């Protein structure tokens, strides 16, 4: 296991104020907050795409290249190479140093998992937005990550496509992958979340089980956010 992940007084410019937080295996963690609260930056600090300007990020797995290989991230907008759907998965597996003989089987199985096997030979970039996002999830699935970071994965999708994405996210959860997802979509957070980290202006205001967060938030800002009010208005 590469988890738990420990952030020790991690800061990033003035976007993330020094915060310490631990992410462990198990429940789905939702990072909730308004636009500009720092959700995306916090995830990128966890995933290692950004280097903190203060503090440190520790994985239990001290071999960092191994820790990196066992985590994946799906972005708000899927980024696909100009190759077939299958080709995009094969590329990811190649970069991850999966033996050539195993790549195609693993990739096809992942496409099957998200319901895209019939589109395997299609150019990835001509797929619809929802299909591309499922393809991004398949690409993550093929890598068998222990942790999957999701940055607003359905923010630019219609409700039907969003439901399909959520189904795949549940499948990840069912397979034992730790899900860490940033969203500002309360309904989605309620549907998928086990615990909520509420971020406000770069600070963690609370971290509570999802039920409790939605029924009795501890901070006034979170309560206002839930009520759909703008906390800064």
């Amino acid at each position, binding site marked *: 296991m590469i988890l738990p992940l420990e952030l020790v007084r991690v800061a990033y410019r003035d976007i993330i104020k020094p915060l310490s937080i631990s992410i462990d295996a198990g429940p789905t963690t939702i990072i909730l907050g308004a636009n500009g609260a720092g959700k995306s930056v916090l995830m990128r600090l966890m995933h290692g795409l950004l280097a903190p300007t203060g503090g440190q990020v520790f994985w239990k797995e001290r071999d960092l290249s191994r820790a990196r290989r066992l985590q994946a991230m799906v972005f708000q907008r899927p980024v696909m190479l100009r190759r077939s759907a299958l080709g995009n998965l094969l590329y990811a597996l190649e970069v*991850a140093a999966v033996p050539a003989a195993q790549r195609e089987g693993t990739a096809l199985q992942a496409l099957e998992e998200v319901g895209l096997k019939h589109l395997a030979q299609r150019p990835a970039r001509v797929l619809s937005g929802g299909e591309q996002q499922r393809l991004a999830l398949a690409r993550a699935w093929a890598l068998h990550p222990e942790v999957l970071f999701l940055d607003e994965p359905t923010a630019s999708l219609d409700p039907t496509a969003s439901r399909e994405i959520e189904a795949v996210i549940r499948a990840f959860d069912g397979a034992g992958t730790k899900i860490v997802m940033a969203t500002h979509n309360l309904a989605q957070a309620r549907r998928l979340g086990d615990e909520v980290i509420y971020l406000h202006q770069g600070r963690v205001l609370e971290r509570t089980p999802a039920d409790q967060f939605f029924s009795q938030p501890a901070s006034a800002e979170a309560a206002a956010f839930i009520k759909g009010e703008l906390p800064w208005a």
Partner: protein
Amino acid sequence: MDSIGGATRTALGLITGGDPTLAGIVALSLGVSLSAVTFATILGLPLGAAVAVGRFPGRHAIIVLLNALMGLPPVVVGLAIYLLLSRAGPLGSLGLLFTPGAMVIAQTVLIVPIIAALSRQAVEDAWREYEEQLRSLGAGGFGAALTVLWDIRFSLLTIVLAGLGRAVAEVGAVIIVGGNIDGVTRVMTTAIALETSKGDLPLALGLGIVLISIVIALNAAAYFVKEAAQRRYG
């Protein structure tokens, strides 16, 4: 008007009849410009990619410089290369002045900025889109850069063809460093300039038709390659 009609008929006769003088000039033109575009691609593409992806002091100045040099006047390049290669110049001992080699050098200098500046823009746009995803997948550095270059190869091909179009249609640089010597350094553009001033309009016009056809064919190729790739790969 009659002279234009007559000249055009004679010109078409030269082209269809495979006139050896005309064929030789066209072949030299293409040889020089294709060589120049090959060298310019070898130099300009990695330069553009490095400036696009790298972060180093002076980067912005280099970008501005490359963009500005896209509009480099060919005669000025010709003059600079002439001074370098002339007998008294620093590279005079190579004896390259008034040879096709000098013309290749001049055209290379002329189109390196074009290929570098345009590929810098293309690579930078693609890099901005791909960088996080590639790093997330574990691809970094040189490997990631090659992945991006391969992914935008059709855009890069269009850029190379733009460079070739500029090289083959350019007259100022090659006439200075080549000297327009019959059978040695006479290319389409310099021949057109000379034959027109001599009054041999059919040959000038024939070369003009070939030159325009080549430029149109290059642009058509660039367009259709890009279109086909767009349909095929999105």
